């Protein structure tokens, strides 16, 4: 537990710092009210609006831990949203609609996984294929229109509340806990890390890298399906052009802010989800603090650069070197004295 807290401490501190910063500009930021059976307030809003990126970040963390990357998740959101909305609009009911959307997400993940694990294409290109062509597929499903529906049960996944908390927030929280337990209570997490550190070595050690890689991409597809369901249910319509547009970049950013290396290996889902919350707090905070929204991207870029600077391996090396030098200077070396004694 202490190790876990130490791992996510930088992200927690960053999040707290940003919340404090936003509160300075917008004092009501931390206020939480209770109205008509649901919690309301800017922080609750952050938890809800951050749901798609947080959901994507869970799957993306696993993919990045295997030294891969999944650029297609935003598009998969559009596809699964379109499938779900189509199923609802055709009168299949909520459960089949959810099942179909999840199957669509898994199928997208399977496609990516096969390209990466069996054909051996670089992850960035393999998922780029689905990223570019997938929106076309989504538009084929919606026939180029924005497919709207009016089904309160399906809309619950976007705007409903559970015990007063918005359902999307409950969903990402539960999914993050479930995936973390699955990874850490079994050997799965370690095997995923082994693939990311050295795929050939892990295969020699008996890890079935091929199956595990496909499974990881399918998990990412499933997370994207959940995000797609939330986004579609929220607006009660499937927009093949704009659903999840560029969210893959936010998700990757969340994982990187979460301190996970893009070169694979050790990962922390909790830190990635915190990264997603940091991004959403910045986005919401900039709006609430009254800054013009055009500053949003510049502030985001500046923050990313700052976090990169702090995480840079080269800089850490330099920092350690400087610290060691300082320590050495503080403790006078015996040789120095002898030299001084000789010199005069």
């Amino acid at each position, binding site marked *: 537990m202490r190790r876990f807290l130490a791992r996510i401490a930088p992200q927690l501190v960053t999040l707290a710092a940003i919340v404090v910063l936003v509160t300075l500009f917008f004092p009501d930021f931390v206020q939480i009210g209770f109205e008509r059976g649901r919690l309301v307030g800017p922080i609750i809003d952050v938890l809800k609006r951050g749901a798609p990126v947080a959901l994507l970040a869970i799957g993306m963390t696993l993919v990045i831990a295997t030294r891969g990357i999944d650029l297609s998740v935003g598009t998969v959101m559009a596809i699964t949203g379109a499938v779900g909305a189509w199923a609802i609009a055709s009168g299949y009911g909520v459960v089949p609609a959810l099942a179909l959307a999840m199957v669509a997400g898994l199928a997208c993940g399977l496609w990516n996984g096969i390209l990466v694990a069996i054909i051996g294409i670089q992850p960035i*290109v393999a998922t780029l294929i689905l990223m570019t062509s997938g929106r*076309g597929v989504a538009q084929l499903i919606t026939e180029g229109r924005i497919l709207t529906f009016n089904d309160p049960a399906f809309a619950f996944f976007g705007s409903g509340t559970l015990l007063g908390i918005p359902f999307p927030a409950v969903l990402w929280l539960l999914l993050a806990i479930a995936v973390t337990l699955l990874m850490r209570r079994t050997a799965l997490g370690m095997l995923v890390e082994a693939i990311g550190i050295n795929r050939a070595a892990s295969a020699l050690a008996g890890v079935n890298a091929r199956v595990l890689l496909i499974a990881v991409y399918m998990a990412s597809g499933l997370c994207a399906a959940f995000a797609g369901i939330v986004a579609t249910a929220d607006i009660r319509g499937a927009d093949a052009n704009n659903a999840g547009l560029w969210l893959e970049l936010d998700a990757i950013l969340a994982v990187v802010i979460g301190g996970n290396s893009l070169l694979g290996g050790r990962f922390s889902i909790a830190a990635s989800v915190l990264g997603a919350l940091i991004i959403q707090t910045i986005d919401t905070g900039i709006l609430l603090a009254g800054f013009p929204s055009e500053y949003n991207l510049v502030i985001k870029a500046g923050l990313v650069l700052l976090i990169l600077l702090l995480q840079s391996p080269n800089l850490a090396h330099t920092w350690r070197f400087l610290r060691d030098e300082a320590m050495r200077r503080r403790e006078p070396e015996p040789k120095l004295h002898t030299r001084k004694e000789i010199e005069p």
Partner: protein
Amino acid sequence: MTANARLYPLFATIAIFIAAYAICWMQFPYMLSTRVVGNLLTDNAYLGIVAVGMTVVILSGGIDLSVGSVIAFSGVFISVVLRDTSLHPLVVFALLLAVTTAFGAFMGLIIHWLAMPAFIVTLAGMFLARGAAYMLTIDSVPIDHAFYEFIKDSYYLMPGKGRLTVIAVVMLLSVAFGALIAHRTRFGASVFALGGGVQTARLMGVNVGQTTILVYAFSGFMAGLSGIVFSIYTGSGYPLATVGTELTAIAAVVIGGTILTGGAGYVVGTLFGVLTMGLIQTYIVFDGTLSSWWTKIVIGLLLLLFIVLQKGLLKLTGTQRDAALA
């Protein structure tokens, strides 16, 4: 033997372009007119230019996600400066190219100095350039300048009434310039070496830091040039323009036969990659009944085809090399 094998993806790209053009021509004989060719070059001029820069970045084993935002920033920068000052457009162009080149060099510096993945550094660059464009203006700013009218009105009338516009010529010259730099200079050799592997490049005496910075500076320059061309093409600057162009450019480079891990490819192939993608769009316009989303699906399938083709080729040449070693 291996030199020949390296040319296969380029040949495949050109063959697919010619075959696709032939199919289009059989269905719509008018496709084979200088008008269509002229439009194909003009409509894809900005993409072609930025893809040349992307080719060099990918040859070096990197990636540059910032170019789409840099194009949008360029358009906004030009239109706002022209609106608020009385500077001549050529002066503004020079200023802009200096800014975008410096921006690219800065990203290269960070990538090298901090040893961070190019993907995430240029992602930050993408946010920064787009944000800078928003800060200049959030509206679409029209460009009214005699010089712009002059450029738009000057073109070479090809036989068959096709227009070879200035921006199409700029694109073709950029491809020639990029090919010259990549294949005929010491810098180009360093880029290929870097794409083959950083360690080996360093052992060969390549100045890794300098090359990395120059590669991204070159990409920034090309993105700026592309932004100028785009502003001439649309006659305005708009901060929301060219969203996602970086990925289209990467797709064009891959379809053009350059291997995404770096170290192998040809700049000329990228031109054919861009033209093939433009051809798909033109075909859909000619057909009239197909929806534009088919463009995306076909481009995705082309991407897949080329990558699988490259994989097969790599395996083929790999086994040959193994056979030679054994």
